[in-house]
């Protein structure tokens, strides 16, 4: 029986789709059977980030409305045989899928895949509530900005109300240089405020844009720093303890290590 993980955020544009593509690809690379679900109905994006946009025939709404079988809608990845995408409908309303339909779909997918990763719409409206239905775990993505962290706080409350407990945090687009200058909140500041456990920190990096231009997730690029950050998150999702990358000053790293009970340098 697999696990359904939703990738959420309050604010839009903070990196949910990028995160979904990279974690899915990274998990598939590590031999897991993965299904990515683009639940951002009306704003289909995940196909493009994965470079699969030309292969789409059916979508999520076609499946739940019975216009095709699940098998027919699943698109196999170019690189990994164990990675599939269920694309979003592009022309439907945000609430074209009900919570009951979504939960049922998750149940079906969990019997076939190790992980189902759901790319959610931003915000707190019905589309979001539909997308998180049937989820086992949630990851919240934020950037180190006031508005994004504030909106992440709302999402924590809404997830709890929907009985999705113990969400984990990804801080995306961190700029170590700005943190050092005192012009960006650091990792610890954000954890203190949101009070949920951290599962990863991804630096702001041009290679993310280059890789989405190409439709090749950066997690596959061995030399890229965000690629390394995503590989670390993948291993943490697999249940391994992986030390956090040294993106900031030593002092913060030290505080983090003590916070998570991770010993000295390995």
């Amino acid at each position: 029986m697999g696990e359904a993980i939703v990738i959420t955020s309050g604010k839009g544009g903070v990196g949910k789709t990028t995160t979904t593509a990279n974690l899915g690809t990274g998990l598939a690379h590590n031999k897991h059977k993965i299904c990515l679900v683009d639940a951002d109905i009306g704003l289909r994006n995940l196909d493009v980030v994965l470079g699969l946009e030309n292969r789409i025939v059916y979508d999520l709404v076609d499946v739940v409305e019975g216009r095709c079988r699940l098998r027919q809608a699943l698109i196999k990845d170019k690189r990994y045989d164990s990675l599939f995408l269920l694309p979003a409908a592009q022309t439907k309303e945000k609430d074209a899928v009900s919570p009951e339909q979504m939960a049922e779909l998750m149940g079906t997918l969990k019997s076939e895949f190790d992980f189902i990763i759901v790319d959610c719409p931003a915000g707190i409206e019905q589309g979001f509530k539909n997308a998180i239905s049937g989820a086992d775990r949630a990851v919240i993505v934020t950037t180190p900005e006031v508005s994004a962290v504030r909106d992440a706080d709302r999402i924590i409350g809404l997830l709890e109300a929907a009985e999705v407990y113990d969400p984990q945090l990804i801080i995306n687009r961190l700029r170590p240089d700005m943190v050092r200058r005192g012009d960006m909140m650091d990792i610890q500041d954000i954890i203190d405020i949101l009070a949920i456990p951290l599962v990863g920190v991804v630096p702001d990096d041009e290679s993310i844009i280059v890789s989405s231009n190409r439709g090749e997730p950066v997690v596959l690029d061995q030399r890229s720093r965000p690629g390394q950050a995503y590989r670390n998150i993948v291993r943490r999702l697999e249940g391994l303890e992986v030390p956090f990358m040294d993106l900031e000053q030593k002092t913060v790293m030290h505080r983090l290590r003590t916070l998570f009970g991770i010993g000295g340098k390995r």
Partner: protein
Amino acid sequence: MLDFIMKLFRGSDNSKDQAKERLRLVLVHDRASLSPGLLESLRGDLIEVLSKYMEIDEPGLEVDFDRSEDAVALVANIPVKRVKREND
């Protein structure tokens, strides 16, 4: 030491510190809010409890959050019609 001198020149108005403080205040407010549904159910419960002791003007009852700069209070305005006697 260098840090200290830098602070002297810049004051402590790092934009990061401003971000943290503004976030703290905004979350005090955000977190102290109930959905309209919950607020309505709180109203109902209040009326039920209070009615054991007094007759209140139900439509006139107001419950809401009072938000000041950095604290939040729940304020209720409850018009009383008649207080019950011991053996009412």
